[in-house]
């Protein structure tokens, strides 16, 4: 099976600074791939190399089975790209820009007419006749997504596609990405964890130029995540927490907000069986008991060691 993207030992240095360090990525065809990392992790550098805008210091990149260093127009014909800050000819109108972008792909006639009309509708810019120079950042971002789709790409590369959008615009873009599932491979970089959890099936986490985690989201949560139980009782909270801390299935106990007891557990079924019995034995009331896995955010924080934005 041909992978949509395959990087091997990708390294990029700027003088002494190592922006990317031995990055190995495999993006399966048809997936929606979240490329997650804090600002400055190397996400934009990776995308610039994937699109041929920059060259790696070492390592190789294959896009849709072609080596990016050797291939030219034939690869670009199947790829759509939205940069982090898209630049446009400000004297053009939205429609003019989409026609121009389509023309660069050799698309014309009724096919281009149909695509332009569909993309104007998708970008919510159908009635806008003014020049791009007067657009807001959000309008430019939506136009950027539209122009990236003008060639009906097999691979869509998006650099921080939702960062400049308001909540409604963000939802529209994420819905649009979800609608492409199975038809187009989508690779998008972001530092917004909620976006990744919402639409992606596969994820890579980049930190200081290195991939620290890579795989399906569920697998990552299972690999890096731990199980937790949160209990709230009406009285005797401190004594109960101490008693739970002595159990073999409890690996850590902490007090959360409003007196909640947060227990990291090694054996979830034992905890679910024994905690209610302990509460009943103390003749106290239980107001809440929740069990669950660690989310992607906690996985991210654990791996990257900082606060996500």
């Amino acid at each position, binding site marked *: 099976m041909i992978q949509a993207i395959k990087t091997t030992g990708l390294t990029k240095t700027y003088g002494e600074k190592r922006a990317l360090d031995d990055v190995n990525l495999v993006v399966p065809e048809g997936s929606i791939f979240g490329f997650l990392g804090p600002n400055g992790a190397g996400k934009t550098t990776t995308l610039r190399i994937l699109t041929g805008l920059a060259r790696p210091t070492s390592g190789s990149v294959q896009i849709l089975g072609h080596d990016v260093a050797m291939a030219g127009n034939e690869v*670009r014909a199947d790829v759509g790209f939205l940069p982090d800050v898209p630049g*446009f000819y400000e004297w053009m109108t939205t429609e003019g820009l989409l026609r121009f972008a389509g023309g660069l*792909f050799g698309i014309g006639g009724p096919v281009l007419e149909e695509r332009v009309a569909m993309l104007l509708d998708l970008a919510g810019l159908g009635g806008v006749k003014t020049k791009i120079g007067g657009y807001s950042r959000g309008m430019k971002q939506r136009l950027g997504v539209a122009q990236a789709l003008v060639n009906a790409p097999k691979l869509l590369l998006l650099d921080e596609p939702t960062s400049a959008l308001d909540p409604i615009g963000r939802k529209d873009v994420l819905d649009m990405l979800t609608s492409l599932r199975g038809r187009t491979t989508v690779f998008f970089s972001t530092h917004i964890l909620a976006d990744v959890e919402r639409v992606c099936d596969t994820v890579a986490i980049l930190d200081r130029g290195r991939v620290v985690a890579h795989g399906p989201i569920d697998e990552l949560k299972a690999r890096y995540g731990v199980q937790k139980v949160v209990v709230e009782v009406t009285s005797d909270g401190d004594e109960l927490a101490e008693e739970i801390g002595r159990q073999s299935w409890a690996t850590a106990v902490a007090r959360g907000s409003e007196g909640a007891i947060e227990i990291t557990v090694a054996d979830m079924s034992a905890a679910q069986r024994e905690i209610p019995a302990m509460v009943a034995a103390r003749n106290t009331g239980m107001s809440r008991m929740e069990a669950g896995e660690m989310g992607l955010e906690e996985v991210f924080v654990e791996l990257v060691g900082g606060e996500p934005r």
Partner: protein
Amino acid sequence: MNGFTVFVGKEAREIPRTWRIWVLPGILLFFALTDPVLARFTPQIVGALGGNQLSGLKIPTPTYLDAYAQWTKDLSQIGLFALIIIYAGIISAETKSGTAVLVLTKPVSRTAFVIAKAAVHSGFLTVLVVLGTLLTWGLTEAIFGKAPGSALWSAALVWLVFGVMFITLMTLLSVLIGSTAGAAGAGLGVYALVSIAAIWKPLGTYSPAGLASLPASLAAGKDAVVLWPVLTSLLLAVALVALAAQMFRRKDL
């Protein structure tokens, strides 16, 4: 239509839709309209400004050659300076604004990008020089009653070759130097060097440096051998575009 022709079309449409339609055309139109008039009335203007102090100075009666000399001088000095400054950002303006990324992530090669820009703006300069020279020619005929074409056109067309060579030079400098001011400074430096080099006869006769002074000689109606300077300038222009494309291909955007 392929990506190259679509990009050429964009580059051509951009001229009338941006500041480009006003600056160089405005400068050349101004000179084309005023040079024959200034040439005709120079004795009166000098007399009015100098008053009695210049009463001993004998200014020869102006002829159509003075109008030609004025037009050629303005092309060679202010025209070329303006061209160097205007085209200092011919490539870097697009790389800085992000529009180069928009185009170059589609099926348009960097070589095509560079060639399209150099070709369209060389064509634009050709149209401007031809129109400006036509205007100067017509006004000279109207004012002086006589305007033989060969001296004016040979001077203007030889300068056009010089101008095209400088567009290609600025294309290369704009690839190499990201700053528009830096590229403009380098372009003006090259112009100064070329002007100095033209003083040395072998360079003035056989190299592009000869084009710095040839238009003035031709406009004065003198015979001059233009073959080698024109030929080497055209070859150099092609080489500069090829080098610009090569350097642009290596550049990280």
